């Protein structure tokens, strides 16, 4: 039982990291960045290339750290570029326009990746020894440990960043009342750009971590992106703690669904959608979301 919880938490923390990217951007722009999953896929590929290149020269663990940083940086750069050319010109357009732009980009990115990197899946060549560690009757693989440790650390850091720092406050201000934030001298464009950087860097970390156990392939971003989007909606889109909660909840329920309820593995992904339907019926604004109405 505890084992499933641990496994669920591991998957869930990945969803949570990616969900944060959706929720952060939604917070400041009220817009779902459907290219998020593909941006993190590109970052994962870059990390893979950097890692495979460096590991012949230096210690694999150091190479891996550099690869993660390279992945984060390239995802962030790509997200900034996309924001500039594909979203910002549409900021005052009807809400559907940037959404379609995002979906279009998602298609372009995954196909470009297939063209450049090939459709065959590749993997990180064992950066570390992955023999499971037995801990009582609990089995933990070092990858799991790494995933949990990294993602939880990042979430805690993000929480304090948003709560305590000036930029965090500015992000909250832009999220709540962009116009007033501007009157306080906050450059909203800058904050929006920074939000994209933050979200896609977190996403890249998630992409890299998840490919340790699985593989890297061009549509990697689509499924994880979809799941994470569902997690963000479940938790309450735009709400940062909600994204974390939604991600973990989804991961745990998926694992329990297969292991305890006996849902066939092939139907594992349906858990997310069923959960989404239930949440949308019961609490459309998500678990932690509040449906405040904007007063004019």
């Amino acid at each position: 039982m505890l084992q499933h919880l641990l496994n669920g938490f591991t998957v869930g923390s990945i969803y949570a990291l990616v969900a944060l990217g959706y929720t952060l951007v939604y917070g400041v722009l009220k817009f779902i960045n459907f290219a998020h999953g593909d941006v993190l896929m590109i970052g994962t590929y870059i990390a893979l290339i950097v890692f495979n290149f460096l590991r012949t020269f230096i210690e694999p663990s150091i190479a891996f750290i550099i690869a993660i940083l390279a992945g984060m940086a390239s995802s962030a750069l790509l997200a900034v570029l996309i924001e500039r050319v594909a979203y910002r010109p549409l900021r005052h357009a009807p809400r559907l326009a940037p959404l379609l732009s995002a979906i279009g980009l998602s298609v372009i990115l995954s196909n470009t990746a297939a063209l450049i990197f090939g459709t065959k899946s590749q993997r990180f060549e064992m950066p570390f020894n992955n023999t499971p560690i037995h801990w009582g009757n609990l089995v933990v693989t070092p990858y799991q440990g790494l995933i949990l440790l990294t993602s939880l650390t990042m979430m805690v850091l993000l929480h304090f960043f948003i709560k305590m720092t000036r930029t965090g406050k500015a992000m909250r201000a832009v999220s709540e009342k962009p116009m007033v934030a501007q009157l306080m001298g906050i450059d909203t464009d800058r904050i929006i750009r920074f939000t994209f950087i933050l979200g896609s860097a977190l996403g890249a970390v998630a992409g890299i971590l998840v490919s340790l156990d699985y593989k890297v392939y061009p549509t990697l971003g689509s499924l994880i992106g979809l799941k994470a989007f569902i997690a963000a909606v479940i938790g309450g889109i735009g709400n940062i703690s909600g994204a974390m909660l939604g991600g973990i909840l989804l991961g745990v329920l998926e694992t329990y669904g297969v292991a305890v309820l006996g849902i066939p593995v092939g139907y594992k992904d349906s858990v997310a959608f069923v959960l989404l339907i239930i949440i949308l019926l019961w609490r459309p604004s998500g678990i932690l979301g509040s449906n405040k109405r904007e007063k004019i």
Partner: protein
Amino acid sequence: MTTLLSTQGLSRSFGGIVAVNDLNLQINKGIITGLIGPNGAGKTTSFNCITGLDSPTGGRVFFNDRDITGFSPPRINRLGIARTFQNLRLFRDMTVFENVMVARHHTSSFSTLLSLLRINDEEKKIQIAAGHWLERLGLWTHRDERAQDLPYGLQKRLELARAMATEPTLLFLDEPAAGLNRTETEQLMTTLRDFRDEGLSIVIIEHDMHLIMNVCEQITVLNFGQMIGQGTPKQVRTNPLVIEAYLGKDDHATR
């Protein structure tokens, strides 16, 4: 008296409706100017055009002899213009303290990533400045409460504190006394006079004539987007055009 801000032929129309029509405002330095007029006279629209929230369809805005027409709101704010709103626009989910701290955002050279490394030093300065304005407006004891939990009168004061924390030289107040009781209004008047004595220039839109007539050195009257009168409270009070705009053509009304 020197002119701090002026508009030349400022116009704003929404489709066929002309909200502000060829307005030539002149705001002098170091005094409190009242901007009055019946509802729909174009007062708030002029505020919006001056502070960058709305773009005028015609005319120019000059601040310290510099043409600021079409500047972005943050840029105008950094030049020293701040404002409050008719209907409160606080960051409702933030604490009182945070609301004011946000207003200090720009005062430090802000490079997003670098700021992470200098949190302590910069944050301290911001906190001191924010604390100063909270104390001045009697909100210090409420600093950790959520903005939306404050009573209305205090929310209004918080909005003023937040605007002041951006360190403006010119402050626009849109109906600061609306919803306040007598005592609160008197307090507000004292505060505004203090600010003026310290060198701040203020422009007030207000329907409370007691406040307007007692704190303003100069009053500008708008109707249908145009200026119909300007002068000292005494001059304005006796201006026939103003009386007509407020009370109608038949002067049976006694007030």
